[in-house]
């Protein structure tokens, strides 16, 4: 008996594989070149931020030297806007890292740049509060990417930021980012070992704070009576 072996044209499969692989490759290239665009725009935003910071810092120094509190209102607004822009940037940088698997090129540097900016603004906020006697509350927010409640905490903070506007400043610190030694210093200073942790003014709260509790806490720090707290 003749054993029949049916035809299997390997060339067709190879051809199909090559075409499929080529489509994939083109897809990756498209994604990669778009990522370069994204990174460029992120870098640009970052360098603008740095310039804004320098300008703000100078403005405060100017006020301090001249003892001219009349200019404070305008500058406070700028400070608050810069901090929320920075927060937008954080969201962007983090989404960018979540979505894209191929380009981590400058991610670490970008992130470090951002972190430094956050801390600089936080310090500037502290100094300027004394100079201008601004009635605002600042929160230092320590989070990690894995922690269960951090996403909800971020959500609540975004919500409160919308609510209080320039009276609330939020500084988000990725606590796993050990490339920046300042992160460790901050963690130790405030004795943070649980996430999320919120440092409201100088008082530290561990665990998720929902909008009601957080609102109450924030309100207790305002000197004037604030409309949103009623």
């Amino acid at each position, binding site marked *: 008996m003749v054993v029949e072996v049916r035809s299997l*044209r390997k060339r067709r499969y190879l051809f199909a594989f090559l075409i499929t692989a080529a489509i994939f490759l083109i897809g990756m290239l498209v*994604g990669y070149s778009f990522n370069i665009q994204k990174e460029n725009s992120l870098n640009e935003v970052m360098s603008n931020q740095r310039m804004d910071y320098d300008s703000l810092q100078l403005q405060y120094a100017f006020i301090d030297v001249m003892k001219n509190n009349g200019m404070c209102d305008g500058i406070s607004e700028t400070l608050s806007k810069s901090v929320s822009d920075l927060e937008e940037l954080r969201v962007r940088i983090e989404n960018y890292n979540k979505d894209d698997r191929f380009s981590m090129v400058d991610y670490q540097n970008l992130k470090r740049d951002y972190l430094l900016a956050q801390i600089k603004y936080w310090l500037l906020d502290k100094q300027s509060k004394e100079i201008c006697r601004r009635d605002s509350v600042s929160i230092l927010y320590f989070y990690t990417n894995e922690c269960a409640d951090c996403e909800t905490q971020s959500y609540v903070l975004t919500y409160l930021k919308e609510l209080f506007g320039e009276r609330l400043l939020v500084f988000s610190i990725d606590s796993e980012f050990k490339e920046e030694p300042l992160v460790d210093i901050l963690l130790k200073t405030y004795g943070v070992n649980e996430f999320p942790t919120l440092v409201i003014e100088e008082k530290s709260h561990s665990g998720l704070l929902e909008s*009601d509790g957080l609102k109450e806490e924030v309100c207790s720090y305002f000197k004037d009576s604030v409309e949103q707290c009623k």
Partner: protein
Amino acid sequence: MITLTNIIMWVAYFIGLFTLVFWLIVFFEKGVIHTYKKLKRHPFVSIAVPAYNEESTIEETIYSLLKLDYPKNLFEVIVVNDGSNDKTKEIVENVISREKEFNIVLINQKNSGKGAGLNNALAKAKGEFFVCLDADSFITPDALQKILPVFEDDRKIGVVLPMMKVKNTNTFLQKMQWCEYIINNFAKKLMSYLDCCHVAPGPFSVYRKEIIQKLGGFSEDNLTEDLEMALRLQKHNYKLIQLLDTVVYTKIPLNLKGFFKQRNRWYKGSVLNVLKYRQMLFNKKYGDFGMFHLPTVLFAAIIALLVLVVSIYSYLFIPILRQIKNILAINFDVPMLMGKWAERVSFFNMNLMNIFLIVVVVLITLSIIYFAYKSHHERLAAHKYVPLIGYFFIYSILILLSWAWVFFDLARGKVQKW
């Protein structure tokens, strides 16, 4: 960040794209071959019509056979009444007494299933060719003239299949199925170029009688005896040829309940029969069929289901759960954040690679639909575009749900369900 979800989606995508590209290559290589050959001699043909409670359609079915463009004395119609408890028997007897110049035979058996009925007919059949026509299907007169010449090409051809079209297109579901049948015919045509057909559907499949008798006739305890026969023919290296030159019209379920019931039987039958003939799976001896197509039949459903489960879980379930938690944490004061969300939907947040890959697959699928319609000389606007769009988006979900039901049944050991 690369997650398990990503890996599953990519592997599934790659396999899916590869399969599409492969069959598109086959299409560009071979085109659509039509048969214009004339029949040289007229062999005797036996046509079996298994009928169980078919009083509403049986007469029309028989008359569609009597109108065949074929010498009256060279074909017989064998109606197998499978223990009907309606008027099927009387109607057939009436037709027999009216149409005396035709060879119409009625076999009454006690209810024992379609496979047994076909075997009964096979035992009585006098023809060189054996045809099976479901009682809910209707043929066009040129069927035998178009189908029989194909057998002259090759002694190894075991069965020739006409193209199937949907007869009743009243509901939206039926219109979507109409689209599906067009695309399936086209796919089976491409498969038959590489001897990869794995199913010989009930309606007017023409068998070489000698071959199916040698293989032992139809399986009697099978969910899908037509598919089982096709796989058996494949196992013995006989050929299955799909034609796009003659049409058989078939009635299909009009609502979702009937649809899911039918698909449950088909898909369960295909899984069980592929497993029954698993020795052909990844068997080099069976060429393209064993190495590529049969595994596709089995794994396509598994992969598709995996994708469905994974995407529902990680793109629907988890985000919704998270969002609920978030909204609870801010006491449902959602309007406050509306503006914020609008800001975040930007070009920047898009993943261009994924968008590109999705666009490619959509374009390839559309081109296949276009070629399928063209090969049938159908306009894309037949039945308007809406069912076609529905087919594209909704139908795949219905198919996946039927598969989910099949696997659910198989998992709890519920195998035989008609």
